[in-house]
């Protein structure tokens, strides 16, 4: 029964794919393509932050961009003031995580749940968005960093190499670093989900009342899960800021929050790989659309999204899994009918997560 995460082939497949991309892409593709893909990597980390707290903690946040933005602005302000980038990058994880603890305490100890939880996160995000938009005047500066209001903060330093000489990363190095971060976040989350802590998270997602009746401190647990997600979102914000060398209040926008929801939903709630795939596909589509100029791109995006929900209600990855399992069953049956030896059924992967 007890199946170790380390025996899950899916994990190794994903990590190998990730490592292959990390190593071979810089050799195979031109600089421009690498920079494009770097963007998908950053947004994938962002998508993972919501995929984790929603899919494995049952916490639906409509305000994930709040932490994304907080991370981005933390990094921007800290790195402009400090000159170096390593400490600001760490701060960009810690500060959103701490804010996540605060907000989580406010929400979960207020017994908010369901859609109300969503709305509170949304409202908090709107407050941030409003306030940061209001910082156009010269009086709004933290140290050397002007917050800039609607126009945002330009000229954010590029990440330094973590080595001693601390050189600025070139696009390839940035890609490799970010890819490594993505792989680490993915593996870290998989391990976390498979751990005892993760199992409790899932039990809370499944049945909050029963979890507390078993003596689990549901609220504290949720605060921890939430703040882990916030820390990851903050880190992705910092990656975004340094990738773009620019950040504006759109980082806090509802659109940014909605995107995270869309990626996770489209990729499949309760999976980690699904949202990453969704990021790549949907971002790629929107990029390609902008180059086509056939009809209004909002129309096209809408025409893609609406049927997507109707056709793939469970999201991309779970549906594809389901289909391939079905196909497998049919194929097996045919084989059996042909009188071949029955293929030993491969056990479905079920390491602590639900299909």
């Amino acid at each position, binding site marked *: 029964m007890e199946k170790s995460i380390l025996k899950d082939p899916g994990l190794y497949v994903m990590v190998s794919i990730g490592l292959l991309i990390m190593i071979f892409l810089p050799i195979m593709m031109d600089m421009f393509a690498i920079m494009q893909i770097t963007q998908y990597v950053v947004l994938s980390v962002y998508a993972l932050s919501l995929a984790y707290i929603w899919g494995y903690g049952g916490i639906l946040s409509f305000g994930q961009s709040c932490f994304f933005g907080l991370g981005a602005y933390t990094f921007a302000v800290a790195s402009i003031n400090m000159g170096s980038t390593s400490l600001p990058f760490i701060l960009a994880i810690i500060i959103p995580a701490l804010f996540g603890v605060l907000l989580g305490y406010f929400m979960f100890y207020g017994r908010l749940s369901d859609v109300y939880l969503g709305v509170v996160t949304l409202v908090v995000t709107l407050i941030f968005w409003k306030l940061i938009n209001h910082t156009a005047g010269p009086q709004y500066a933290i140290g050397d960093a002007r917050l800039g209001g609607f126009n945002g903060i330009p000229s954010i330093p590029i990440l330094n190499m973590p080595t001693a000489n601390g050189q600025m990363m070139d696009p390839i190095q940035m890609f490799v670093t970010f890819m490594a971060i993505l792989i680490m976040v993915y593996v870290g989350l998989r391990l976390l989900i498979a751990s005892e802590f993760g*199992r409790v998270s899932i039990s809370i997602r499944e*049945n909050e009342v029963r979890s507390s009746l078993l003596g689990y401190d549901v609220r504290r647990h949720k605060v921890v899960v939430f703040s882990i997600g916030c820390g990851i979102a903050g880190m992705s914000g910092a990656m975004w800021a340094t990738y773009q060398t620019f950040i504006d209040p759109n980082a806090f926008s509802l659109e940014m929050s909605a995107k995270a929801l869309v990626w996770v939903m489209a990729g499949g709630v309760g999976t980690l790989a699904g949202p990453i795939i969704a990021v790549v596909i949907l971002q790629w589509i929107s990029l390609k659309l902008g180059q086509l100029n056939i009809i209004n791109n909002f129309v096209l995006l809408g025409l893609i999204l609406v049927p997507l929900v109707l056709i793939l209600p469970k999201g991309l990855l779970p549906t594809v899994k389901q289909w391939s399992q079905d196909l497998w069953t049919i194929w097996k049956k045919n084989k059996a009918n042909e009188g071949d030896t029955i293929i030993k059924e491969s056990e479905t992967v079920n390491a602590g997560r639900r299909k």
Partner: protein
Amino acid sequence: MSDQEILRTTGLTMRFGGVTAVNNVNFSIDHEGELRCLLGPNGAGKSTFFKCLTGQLVPTEGTITFMGEPIAGMDTHEIVNLGIGIKTQVPNLFNGLSAYDNVRLAAKRKHLKRQAIEKTFDMLSNCGIENLKGSEVGLLSHGQRQLIELAMVLAAEPTLVLLDEPAAGMTGEERDRLAFLVKEVTKTASVIVVEHDMAFIKQIAKNVTVFHRGEIFAEDDVKKIMKNKSVQEIYLGKSADAA
């Protein structure tokens, strides 16, 4: 057996808006191993009473003392960790997980990893549901779910076990198993059972408390209660005849 008082409520009252669901209830379980049945028609306040005991509801007035410690107003998980376990009226399980995972999540509260797994298997076999261990519990029958929930409650080795209509939806065989289990439990813990099934009550209980309109109406030996005219009037009527 120790003589420490297990549970005492004083003036326990729970109001929802204008409705008083539990009214000035003074109730006690005096010693370890006691098994008490709660009777009463639907809406008499039994389930609300349970919810107050487990901290799912914060009582409007009154005190609850468990093992000498006041627990009214504490959080559910804190109370549970003091040693109260509850099987709710409608089985409250992790529907997406297997029976094994369900019970193990409970066992983990008291035991370290390896012991927890042993405990889980013990409980599954004690409750006669070993064969269900891999099944997703959302897909099982009501009776099976009752047993799984019972296994979860017992896996955490509570001092006081609250069982809300445990026999509902069970086959005869399952019910016998349940009666046996409940008796086993009283060796190490006290038990409060809410039940309508008189045959089952007779099978397990000695002392009975009757709830009516949120108050304690009568409290006595099971045989005497069943002969009590006014109790029969408010509640037992048919069941008593049937029994």
